[in-house]
């Protein structure tokens, strides 16, 4: 009975606190990708680096909780981006999130399918696609999911 009351009390406190937080017209959103780099691309190691720029529409600082972004190369899933470091997210401002895809070793299935790609062998530009989301926490407890979808053309050699 006591634990039930505690839960109700906590929920009501949470609701009161969230009611004080002014919600902006628009949720935080993805702006652009920049600085794409191929750090390594061979059978032993694949390392792709890029920076995603987002905009925090809230009047409050936020905290990055989760990154869940899949990276596709010529519509083949390469892997997921690793969450690197604690990133400060200022209020009403753009913020950069470095995205590092590290595959060490990439795995036989990926390498086989990649080397079958004619574009890769001939050195033509290939399509790299980022799809997923990041999760932020505003004022420490309001969860916000920000989707990201972008593609770029890049010559790996």
């Amino acid at each position, binding site marked *: 009975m006591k634990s039930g009351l505690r839960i109700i009390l906590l929920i009501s406190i949470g609701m009161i606190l969230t009611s004080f937080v002014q919600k902006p017209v628009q949720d935080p959103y993805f*702006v*652009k990708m*920049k*600085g794409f780099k191929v750090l390594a691309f061979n059978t032993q190691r694949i390392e792709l680096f890029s*920076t995603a*720029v987002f*905009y925090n529409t809230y009047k409050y600082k936020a905290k990055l909780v989760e990154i869940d972004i899949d990276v596709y190369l010529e519509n083949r899933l390469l892997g997921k981006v690793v969450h690197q470091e604690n990133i*400060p997210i*200022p209020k009403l*401002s*753009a*913020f*950069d999130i470095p995205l590092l895809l590290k595959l060490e070793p990439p795995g036989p299935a990926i390498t086989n399918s990649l080397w079958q790609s004619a574009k890769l062998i001939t050195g033509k530009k290939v399509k790299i696609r980022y799809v997923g989301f990041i999760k932020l926490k505003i004022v420490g407890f309001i969860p916000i999911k920000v989707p990201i979808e972008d593609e770029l053309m890049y010559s790996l050699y």
Partner: protein
Amino acid sequence: MRSFLLILLLGCIAIACNRSDSEALVYRNVYSVNLNGLHKKTASLNALIAFESQYEKTSFKLKDIDVDISIDGIDIGTYFSREPLTLKAKSQIKIPLAYSFENSKIVDEAGSNSSYIVVLKGTAKFTDEQGNEQKVNFTHKETVNTIAKNKVSKKNKKKNLDEDELSKTDIRKLRKEKKRDLKIEKNQ
């Protein structure tokens, strides 16, 4: 027939001359680049980015502007704004840029420098009344001088003063020597 062709040619030339080829949105310059608070935990960069409309009648609205900021070759971050500023026909607009960043990104343990190379690279998107979008790319590089905020020890201050005094006395001596030389010349 010949006269008709001549008239047609003249007409074409007149129309070509009358065409407003120069109608465009142009990046002009970046003014008042300032780096502040380099001795604090968070520093700030301020600037004014100027664009010009060469259109005779059409006015534009700023859709968004994004600027990649790098200082001394280090990527500092991205400035992004969607402030709906208006760029009227045949006029200029100065978009204010204010960006705060962690000082540790550019200032190492040795302390702050007296000058920094600031590079601003970005794109401004404008839309006209019909919703047609125009992109204006720009790159600006500037060396920004800052006042060194490092505390100068009293000894160093004294040393500097002594050096200044010496240089002044040297100048006095030189002047006296010159005067003597002139007097000797006159007497001769």
